[in-house]
């Protein structure tokens, strides 16, 4: 009986879980191997003899060295971090305030405003970046981190507003009423009573917003020009794809070094993230 249960657990639980992990993480394993593989081993056709693509006996740090020493990778990492954090912070403040107003306050047009904010999320970036370049020029933000810090919120705010709306709706109205009877102003009731309760929701909106900023490519490509201002995705692609030659090892090293730190940070937050998204159940 117990034997049977264990067997069943393996088939229905361990096996699929291992499969998921392997399939989802295989590309990363491949990136790791490519990062450490010397170029001489890299270009072997798939049906070459004695070829084992999954291991290398001559690991090299050459690709990482090229990435770190010959490109401005650390600067890009720093830029990306700064831009993502700042735009996430701005979006969260806006999104939390707007979400609060749209879900917990009564005023005319609340519904249509909510829809209006949502609609901006639907506009494809491939259309927006050209007129947006005009705006960036008018504000003289070109080639500064501000060009991204201020434009990323355009697609982050709708999302976070919406997520926060869902979350706020799930918090009982009485919580503020009670506070207001005790003499708090509306502002105080929001800041001291409701926001602390909504922390998981804010966190999950933050993580999602951060990821989207971290990933963004087109705006970063178009609005930044000096190498020292670039973000990881644009910098790596700009420097490591040279005409007919891809610097695969360094490209992959860039991808890894640019995502592992985030993964580690997320591992601390993931429980909150999970909890936070729950708030949108009612969204």
């Amino acid at each position: 009986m117990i034997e049977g249960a264990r067997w069943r657990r393996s088939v229905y639980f361990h096996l699929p879980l291992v499969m998921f992990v392997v399939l989802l993480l295989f590309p990363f394993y491949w990136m790791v191997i490519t990062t450490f593989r010397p170029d001489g081993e890299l270009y072997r056709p798939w049906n070459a003899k004695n070829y084992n693509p999954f291991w290398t006996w001559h690991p090299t740090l050459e690709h990482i060295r090229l990435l770190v020493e010959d490109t401005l990778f650390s600067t890009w990492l720093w830029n990306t971090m700064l831009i993502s954090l700042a735009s996430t912070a701005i979006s969260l403040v806006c999104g939390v305030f707007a979400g609060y107003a749209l879900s917990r306050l009564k005023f005319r047009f609340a519904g249509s405003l909510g829809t209006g904010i949502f609609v901006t999320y639907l506009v494809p970036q491939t259309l927006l970046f050209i007129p947006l370049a005009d705006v960036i020029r008018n504000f003289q933000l070109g080639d500064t981190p501000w060009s991204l810090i201020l434009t990323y919120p355009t697609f982050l705010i709708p999302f976070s507003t919406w997520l926060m709306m869902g979350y706020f709706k799930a918090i009982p109205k009485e919580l503020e009423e009670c506070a207001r009877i005790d003499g708090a102003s509306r502002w105080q009731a929001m800041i001291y009573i409701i926001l602390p309760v909504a922390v998981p929701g804010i966190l999950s909106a933050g993580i999602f917003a951060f990821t989207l900023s971290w990933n963004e490519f087109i705006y970063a490509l178009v609005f930044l020009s000096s190498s020292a201002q670039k973000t990881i995705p644009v910098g790596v692609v700009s420097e490591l794809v040279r005409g007919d030659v891809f610097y695969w090892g360094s490209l992959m090293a860039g991808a890894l070094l640019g995502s592992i730190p985030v993964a580690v940070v997320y591992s601390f937050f993931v429980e909150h993230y999970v909890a936070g998204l729950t708030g949108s159940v009612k969204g």
Partner: protein
Amino acid sequence: MRIATTRAPRLRLGRALLNQGAKSEEPDMASATTTTTMMRSAMPAGRVHQKAGLLEDERWFAAALLLPTAVLLGLFIAYPFFQGIWLALTDTRVGVPGNFVGLKNFEKVWNDSIFRTAVWNTCWYTFITTIVKLVLGLWLAQLLNRHFKGKAWVRAFILLPFIIPTVLSTFAWKWMFDPTFSVLNWLFWQMGFITKRINWLGEPDLAFFSIIVVNIWRGVPFYAISLLAGLQTISPELQEAAAIDGANAWQRFLHITWPLLLPVTMVVTLFSVIQTFADFQLVYVLTGGGPANATHLFATYAYQIGVGTGLLSEGAAISLAIFPVLFIVVLLQLLYIRRVETR
């Protein structure tokens, strides 16, 4: 306290959510009291309130809260958005301001065979990936919802495909699909499944399949983690009760888990559909819309026409043509979510 007694059922839901975040098991009253105390201690002692201010008016307060959003969106989205619509109605080329031509661009686009391919591709692409991501994500969420060693690590690292900059992970896939160096071919060959290589990105159907695979790979973690969140709100007691009543695992899923999970599923699907519909980077890097336009999506085709060819007006028209389709899909989902919500 008044709130706890009069509105108990509603609050219980709120508490379930609160607990999710705070991981506390306090009774309703205690939690309400704590927040009030919390507020008191957080606020400086002394004067407690000032109710006469303009901000105590609900409408003014709302306006003030909406101000930052309005300013940012107004400055950075409003102009480009209307400019985009205007572009689509003119015959603008890059560097040449255009004249108003009405719906001519849309007419031209409508008669464009590549555009039609792109429409079909986008719809199929979104449809297939959404279904598969949902099924796999749900499955994975179920697995992650159980207790096992290293759960936290698995949960964090499973998010990697979602975190990594899309352009770079797509380069990795491009390398794995490379017709000459494909590690996938090596693998299948070693396992004896194939004798000839699979031309992943070279044949139209296969190339389309390949971009779908990459999209799913990138999207499953997001679904899984989000649905996991939903699963955790479902009380295990319900499951146990049903099990005692003799329901098997599948029945329990169908009659208990799925209905309760539906709202969160809708939200996740909504975000995912919007993102997938406008997907650009993946195809841009992997195939550039080739071979022979077989993998063009709305966004990549709009980009090729608008930027590659300089026909900004036509590119804008293609981008906007996505809008009604997306709008309908999203509207349906929004309506559905509202219905679930009011139920």
